Each structure stands twice: as structure tokens, then as C-alpha cells.
């Protein structure tokens, strides 16, 4: 089977704006289109599993796959391919999506560097052409700013039509300042849009940031949230799910453009 061009997308935004709903639904839809999808949840307070349609688990952190190099820096273990680590550590979900979460911090001690670096290694060292990564980032600015966001080709800022959400998204655009950024595009996904005025307010508040998709407010998505089931499983034809399918179209065309430009004359 010929897979569509792979890409890495990260989803950031204020808490409750709908990051996990967008990421989980997108991961499932991309898998149905033939992508080999790894869905990453780097939030120590995980929530992506439910939106993907996977029973939430109690995953250990990835310390077991981490070792110190000569300079004392933690890295992924070298005796295993990154793909092998992913296949061992990740869980398999519906539509063949593989799911890996950062894991729970169990004590008040700081998150171990070994675990952080192992997760970073997976997000950055998986063969780029083979795996499509959908990365659900923690809420707010802390970890997205810290570096995980910039491992993605496309960073989606999920914004619901509230001033709090817009203010958070405006802060998140600062991630492009990072020189280590490999992000080619930062765009807005307007979520829970109830009217044209909602959408206008969101785009007006984010000048210079492209609107990639508009996802309508959808009682079906809210009910899925209430019941703890994936929106795509509750109603694959729900308006919000269809809008995420349009987002998948858009991301595929962005990936196809960049693939063809890399192969260009």
C-alpha cells in the first residue's frame, strides 16, 4: 500500500479549547486515509486517549528507554530503533492508530529528565517520511514553549471564541521565535464556532496567523465529552468531525506541496 506523504502536526491552546478532540479525531481520520499514525499525548494529565477511543490507561513514563550519553545527557537507548521503541511502548487503538502518552507523574518530585528526553527523542527521531505524528500538547504555554511544539511541521493553535483562549493563542505564537524550530506553518483552528461573528472575532484577534480550519460548535462533540467516548465513534458524520476531516484535507495538501517542493528541480 502506498501511504500518503507523512507529516508531523502538534496541537496547542488554552485548556478546554478542544485540543484533544481535534488531535484525537484528526489522528483517527488520517489513519483511515492510510497514514501510519502515532498519536502523542505529552500532557502529564492525559486526556487524548478518550478522544481517540482508547481506554485511558496508567502508562509508565519512558525512563526504561532512556540512557545517558558520554556527556551525561539523556537520550533514547541506542540498541533499539526508534520505531521498535514506539511499537513496544505505544498502545494500539482503533483504525490502527498507535498511541503513546507521556505518563503520569506519580510523586511531587520533578519530572525525570530521562523520561522527558526519551519522549523528545521519539517525537524527533522517528523516520519523518514514514510516520505521521499527531501531538496533543499540554494546555497553555508551559511545555509547548519548552520545545515540544517546534518538533512539528505544522503547529495548530486551537482557539475557541473567548478572550481567554485568544490571549493564550497569541502568547503561543511566540514559539516561532525559537531558532531550533522546524515548524513550517503556525495556523489557527477555530473551534466551537457558533456564528460568523465568532469566526470573525477569532481571525481579527490573530492577525498574520492563517486560519487553517473552522470547527463548529457541535452538541454531538459535547455529548461525546460528557459520555467519555471519541467524537468519531459517537457520530462519524457529526459537523465537528466533518470539519476535522476538512482539516485533514488541508494538512495533506500542505504535506504534498512541501514534498513536491523538496523533490523539485
Amino acid at each position, binding site marked *: 500500500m502506498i501511504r500518503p506523504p507523512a507529516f508531523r502536526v502538534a496541537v496547542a491552546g488554552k*485548556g*478546554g479549547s478542544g485540543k484533544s478532540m481535534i488531535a484525537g479525531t484528526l489522528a483517527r481520520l488520517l489513519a483511515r486515509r492510510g497514514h501510519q499514525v502515532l498519536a502523542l499525548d505529552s500532557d502529564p494529565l492525559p486526556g487524548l486517549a478518550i478522544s481517540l477511543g482508547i481506554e485511558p490507561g496508567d502508562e509508565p513514563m519512558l525512563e526504561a528507554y532512556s540512557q545517558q550519553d558520554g556527556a551525561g545527557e539523556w537520550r533514547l537507548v541506542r540498541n533499539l530503533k526508534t520505531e521498535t521503541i514506539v511499537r513496544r511502548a505505544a498502545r494500539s487503538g482503533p483504525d490502527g492508530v498507535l498511541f503513546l502518552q507521556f505518563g503520569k507523574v506519580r510523586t511531587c518530585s520533578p519530572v525525570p529528565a530521562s523520561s522527558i528526553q526519551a519522549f*523528545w527523542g521519539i517525537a524527533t527521531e522517528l523516520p519523518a517520511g514514514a510516520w505521521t505524528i499527531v501531538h496533543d500538547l499540554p494546555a497553555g504555554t508551559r*511545555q509547548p514553549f519548552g520545545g515540544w511544539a517546534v518538533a512539528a511541521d505544522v503547529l495548530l493553535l486551537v482557539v475557541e471564541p473567548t478572550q481567554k483562549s485568544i490571549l493564550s493563542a497569541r*502568547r503561543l505564537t511566540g*514559539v516561532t521565535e*525559537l531558532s531550533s524550530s522546524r515548524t513550517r506553518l503556525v495556523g489557527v483552528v477555530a473551534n466551537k464556532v457558533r456564528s460568523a461573528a465568532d469566526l470573525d472575532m477569532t481571525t481579527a484577534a490573530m492577525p498574520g496567523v492563517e486560519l487553517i480550519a473552522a470547527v463548529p460548535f457541535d452538541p454531538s462533540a459535547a455529548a461525546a465529552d460528557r459520555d467519555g467516548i471519541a467524537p468519531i465513534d459517537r457520530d462519524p458524520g457529526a459537523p465537528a468531525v466533518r470539519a476535522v476531516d476538512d482539516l485533514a484535507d488541508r494538512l495533506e495538501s500542505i504535506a504534498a506541496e512541501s514534498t513536491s517542493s523538496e523533490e523539485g528541480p
Partner: protein
Amino acid sequence: MKIAIAGKGGSGKTTLAGTLSRLLARRGFEVLAVDGDANPNLGLSLGLGLQMTAELVAARQELDLTPVDAHPTSIEGIIGRFGVVGPDGVQLIQVSRIDHPVSGCP
């Protein structure tokens, strides 16, 4: 009395904290609202408006930028230096805000 409010993103922590602060102030309490989120939005729920909330100084960053001998030496001094007074007399202090990303520090 000290009240801390926690919960999942979007569950309404900030709205509850802001509204509770205003109502307690109206009942005559002297209220200090502390925004401990690195992505601080409490000013919006307190009624300070978007611009003031966005531009409010964060105590930790300001302290990092000033020499230690110029730091306030009391809690009242910190509130006086960094706090703002909003509607109903509620004082707001923002602990920390991440304005610029740092590479390699997830």
C-alpha cells in the same frame, strides 16, 4: 482564609476564582487574587479587560530582572510593587508568565 482552585483546563477555574473574588470583596473582605498559571488569564474574569491582563507584569520575571538589593522585602511590598487594583477593590498579582520560549527545556 486562603482558597486554592484547581481542575482540568476549561473546567472554569478562572471564572470561579474571578467571580468569587469579586463577590467576597463586595461583602467587605480584603481580597488578593493570585494568578499562579504560567498562562495567566485571571485578569479577564476579574474584569480588568484584555489589554491590562495581557500587559500585567509577572512578579517572578520582574524580580529576575532587578538586582536582589532592590527586591521588596515583605509580602506587602511584593503586592504593592506588582499588584494591581481591579473592580470592587480586588487586588491581583500575577506570579509568572512565559513570554518567550526556551529551547530544549520541555
